[in-house]
């Protein structure tokens, strides 16, 4: 049907425009902006040089460290939980409730809890409350449901313990799904905006806190903003381009109703 294709084309253009702009704006030469003339298209690397002293590198380091730790924990703990549920543990209801819970509800109570644990303004504040993720458990459980259970039974008959089975039998089979889930978990934590701003201050700013502050402090320096936005997006863009097929397949399989 032609109107459906038109809707799709229009929406695809709407989605693509900001992405294309994200890629282009980083290279806008300063002259084009001084003359306020967008027709003076051109490419320049000056904007990236201007980023040097802004603290972007530091904030990306913080984000990489916190997100890396979180993703590792979420995969390990999530796989364990998914395996237990697959074996009959009744934990899925709790996972589904947590999955549907708007995240802002946890801001105030987590602030109090982290205060009590003396974790406010530490790296721990960015990591400890995120050790397990309901989305990761759910996606890995959906993946586990497609694993023929004979492989587990056979490993048990061979005398393998449960930890060994998960680490040596299940994990290799689920490698594509684990990779895809890792990227989704990475994006979810990397893209937290308000939470890190509440729980930490400047030396521990994450990349999102840095970007929102840059936009507030220097709203007219387009080239600089564009370059910062692009550099901050690169890790996720690279991960997405490399693993796009697996991510989409895992996500589709996870939510097949």
């Amino acid at each position, binding site marked *: 049907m032609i109107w*459906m*294709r038109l*809707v*799709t084309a229009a*929406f*695809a253009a*709407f*989605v693509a*425009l*900001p*992405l294309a*702009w*994200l890629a282009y*704006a980083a290279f806008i030469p300063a002259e084009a902006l001084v003359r306020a003339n967008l027709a003076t298209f051109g490419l320049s690397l000056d904007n990236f040089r201007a980023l040097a002293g802004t603290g972007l590198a530091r904030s990306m380091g913080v984000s990489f460290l916190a997100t890396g730790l979180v993703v590792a924990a979420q995969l*390990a*703990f999530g796989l*364990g*939980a998914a*395996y237990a549920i697959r*074996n*009959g*543990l009744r934990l899925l209801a*709790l*996972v589904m409730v947590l999955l549907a*819970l*708007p*995240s*802002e*509800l*946890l*801001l105030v*109570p987590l*602030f109090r*809890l982290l205060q009590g644990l003396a974790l406010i303004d530490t790296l721990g504040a960015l990591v400890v409350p*995120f*050790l*397990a993720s309901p989305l990761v458990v759910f996606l890995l459980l959906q993946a586990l449901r497609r694993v023929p259970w004979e492989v587990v039974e056979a490993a048990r008959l061979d005398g393998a313990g*449960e930890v060994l089975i998960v680490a040596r039998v299940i994990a290799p089979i689920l490698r594509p799904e684990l990779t895809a889930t890792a990227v989704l978990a990475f*994006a979810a934590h990397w*893209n937290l905006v*308000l939470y890190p*701003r*509440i729980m930490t201050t400047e030396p521990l700013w994450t*990349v*999102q806190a840095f*970007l929102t502050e840059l*936009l507030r402090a220097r709203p007219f320096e*387009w080239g600089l*903003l*564009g370059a910062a*936005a*692009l550099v901050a997006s690169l890790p*996720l*863009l690279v*991960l997405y381009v490399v693993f796009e097929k697996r991510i*989409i397949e895992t*996500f*589709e399989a996870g*939510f097949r*109703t």
Partner: protein
Amino acid sequence: MAERASLRRPPTTQPRLRDRVTARRAAFALALPAAAAFVAFSVVPLATVVRYATWRWSGTTEPVPVGAANLLRLVQDDALWQSLATTLTFAAIALPVFLTLSVVIALAIEGLRWERAIKALLFAPGLVTVGGSAIAWYLLYNPDFGVVPELTGLALPWTSQPWAALLYVVLFTLWQQTGYGVLVASASLRGIPREVKEAARVDGAREDQVRRYVVLPMLRPTLLFLTVIGTVFSLQSYTAVYLLTRGGPFGTTRVLGYFLYETAFERYELGYGAAITLFALVFTLLLAGLQARLLARRGAAEASA
């Protein structure tokens, strides 16, 4: 000794069954770290909100118990009801568009050579660094100096007009999230057996009739599922509001979640923020309960039909 014992044991299913039970118990233990984390950092915090809601508390000073004062103030607070109305308006605009686009696009690209490329494109905004996306939108669509207003003369006056600001946040949210919906709809389209559609065609149905009378009814569970996801997205729109409008102009895009954040962490009234959290929690649970009942009733209706 052990060898002899195993030799003597006849090969029945009994010991294997017992082994299987112990194995399952051992497997359950693997859920402990995740379960402990869920309890410690989600369940317990949510339960303690009830207590924090009775405090006057700036976050840095010692809390002072004030009983039900926060809750009494909350139900009389115009800002609460305004933010609730804003949230519902947001959902009323965003949800139908989200559902329609998800299904229409999934149907349109099914089996197309471009299917994978379009899905990859539509899913990308959800993964791009969200602060970077906000910057790109700001530079593109700012009504005073953005690229699109400069080049086309068409501007959405989201910095000054309340309706435009809410629409702007809705558009950004749809830009970010519709890819998820398309993937979910597309996955369930693939779950429809080919024979069902073939049978309708054999009976003389045209393509649009197959779509309307065969495919769409079979997508009903997916639509309900997408409604649930879309509701969660709507309730979480506070991040987009923070990035794009900070609740303005004149507080007209202050959705419930943003009202909560602003009260607790920009005005430093965490006790009052806890009361808003409690209200939002009850509201979410009521909504979830309503949706669960709807799902159950539809399910029952289909079972009896």
